[in-house]
């Protein structure tokens, strides 16, 4: 065990899995000598050589398209997109090929690969470095989408993703890359894809979130606890396939729910979760489900960032509204 940040835990997952399986190949822009712009792959090229840690040309569609061919040939590529917004040039490959290959070849060809990308806002970067496009990806059949919120989950989920027989997009909350340290085991372990995590049991209201928003969710729960409100916290963790039974069980128990995400509001995954609650737990509800989200706006430059991102205060207000209904 060692105390590790999210970045260190992800690095450790790749280091361990590469030692265990020579089919695992890392590829991306600046990931080799440089160790990646966030240093997530630091030291791995020195350890495994340029044959297994590929510095690629600056071509996101090229990276994903090439990884598809490598995976079909039996390798296990782990491709890094420098930022989520730069995953969009590869969206054609993801939606038109990656998510379809198993189905259209009736299982003959498969794409067991991982695409890693830092996502989300809060680090005051230039434009195009703060996007949260998870809903777009979840709306793409044939791929899985995972977002860890803690170092422990990050390592275990990434190892699961690399071993998964299907393509997994692994979104890393860049705002909390180095924000917290947590005890993370040294060796190989997995956290299963497709399972949400109940972070804290509670009885009065369920608050759900994922990625870096878990910080605001936890802080809001702390505020409410001081007022005597028992909040059940759920980290959704896997966006696709989402662990609906765990979310529903929680809402059935508490009767009230708030969903928090920094992605734009309309058509966001909060809407999907509300629909699931509507279908499966409507009669348990004591109040309409609230969403605390980003807005249907372009992600702003740093000066307006604090107004865009959901804050602890906004989450607290939403919890108060569902309690007071």
């Amino acid at each position: 065990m060692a105390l590790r940040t999210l970045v260190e835990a992800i690095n450790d997952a790749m280091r361990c899995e590469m030692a265990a399986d020579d089919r695992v190949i890392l590829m991306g822009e600046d990931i080799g000598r440089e160790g990646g712009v966030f240093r997530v792959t630091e030291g791995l090229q020195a350890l495994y050589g340029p044959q297994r840690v590929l510095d690629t040309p600056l071509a996101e569609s090229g990276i994903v398209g090439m990884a598809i061919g490598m995976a079909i040939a039996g390798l296990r590529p782990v491709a890094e997109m420098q930022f989520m917004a730069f995953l969009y040039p590869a969206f054609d490959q993801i939606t038109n090929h990656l998510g379809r290959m198993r189905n259209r070849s009736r299982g003959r060809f498969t794409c067991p690969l991982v695409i890693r990308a830092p996502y989300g806002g809060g680090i005051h970067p230039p434009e195009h470095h703060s996007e949260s496009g998870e809903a777009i990806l979840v709306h793409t059949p044939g791929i899985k989408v995972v977002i860890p919120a803690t170092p422990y989950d990050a390592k275990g989920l990434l190892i699961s993703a690399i071993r998964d027989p299907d393509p997994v997009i692994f979104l890393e909350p860049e705002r909390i890359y180095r924000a917290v340290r947590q005890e993370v085991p040294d060796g190989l372990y997995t956290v299963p894809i497709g399972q949400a995590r109940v972070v804290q049991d509670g009885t009065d209201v369920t608050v759900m979130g994922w990625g870096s928003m878990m910080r605001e969710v936890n802080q809001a729960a702390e505020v409410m606890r001081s007022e005597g409100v028992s909040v059940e916290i759920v980290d959704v963790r896997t966006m696709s396939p989402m662990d609906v039974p765990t979310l529903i069980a929680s809402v059935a128990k508490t009767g009230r729910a708030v969903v928090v995400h920094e992605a734009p509001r309309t058509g966001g995954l909060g809407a999907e979760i509300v629909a699931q609650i509507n279908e499966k737990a409507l009669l348990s509800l004591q109040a309409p489900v609230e969403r605390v989200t980003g807005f249907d706006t372009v992600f702003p430059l740093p000066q307006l960032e604090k107004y865009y991102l959901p804050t602890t205060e906004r989450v607290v207000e939403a919890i108060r509204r569902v309690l007071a209904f």
Partner: protein
Amino acid sequence: MFFERYDPLKQEMVCILAPDGSCNETLRPALDEQQVRQLYQQMWLLRLYDRKAVSLQRQGRFGTYAQMEGQEASMVASVLPLQPQDWLVTSYRETGAMWMHGVPLKLLSLYWMGNEFGSQMPEGVRVLPLSIPVGTHPLHAVGLAWAGKYRQDGSIAVTYFGDGATSEGDVHEAMNMAGVYQLSCIFFCQNNQYAISIPRHHQTAAPTIAQKALAYGFPGILVDGNDMFAVYAVMREAVERARRGQGPTLIEAYTYRIGAHTTADDPSKYRDDAELEEWKGRDPLLRVQRYLQQSGQWSEAWEQQMLEACTAEVEQAMEAAAAVPLPPPQDLFRYMYAEMTPQLIEQEAALLASLQHQGEGHGTAHAR
């Protein structure tokens, strides 16, 4: 030797067998009489298949189909030098190349009839399902070639695409990456002069497509795509280079789509009869027939027999595909992931319940 001798910047094109059947014997590849006749027969089989496919589409028994008449030489002669361990990654007008590399006509027909099982390649056949989004698939060949190099398994990857695809960004990325990693990847462009209605000169201001290879740091060559000998000779050299680890090549096969873009297209809107007639004069099959006649290897009886055999094979494949039962609704959900997700299980159950409610049996045999 061809790659060194023919300069795409000077628009030099490799031609060996002329439309009148005369042959440049010094350049003629070492194919024996039997092989030449077999290639001729394979081209005929493809042409008959193509025509039959169009006719079935008109009868409503085939879906929208991308025709390949006129491009037979470019396909049969380019696949001939490949080995079973080599990968083929094609677009939608390369049914003939897929067949040459081991995909049964029955499967290809099943695909065009609208069944995904038509893309479930037989075990060991290294051909990816054909790709519809134009120009996106050459990247997959690059990945396959990269894996071959990593494993040193001696395989190469060949990708086919049209002149229109060369305007797509992914084709640029594919050639660039193949060059950077010096991969055993062959880019085979069938320049059939039109991307649906857009003529070749509207795709690029470059005089040839072949010359684009030079910018990626590897050789490109222009070849008469209707000349079976020239295509074979050039492709064999590209394959030998790739096999020796000498990196990628780009081949521009200069040919013509005699038919429509697909059965949903009407080419009379964008090209004139005179042009079509001129290209019919450069037909890839006719020139081999003339060559065989001039070299005393042809008889009317043999040709008749050969055409009958081809027709029978085509008919048999189409009938076998038509006899495949319609897939059950469960097939929608079954192949999305290695294991069905809870969402898919729920959605499948809902569909089956709805079908049952409507009185449509499922899981039982379906009428076609």
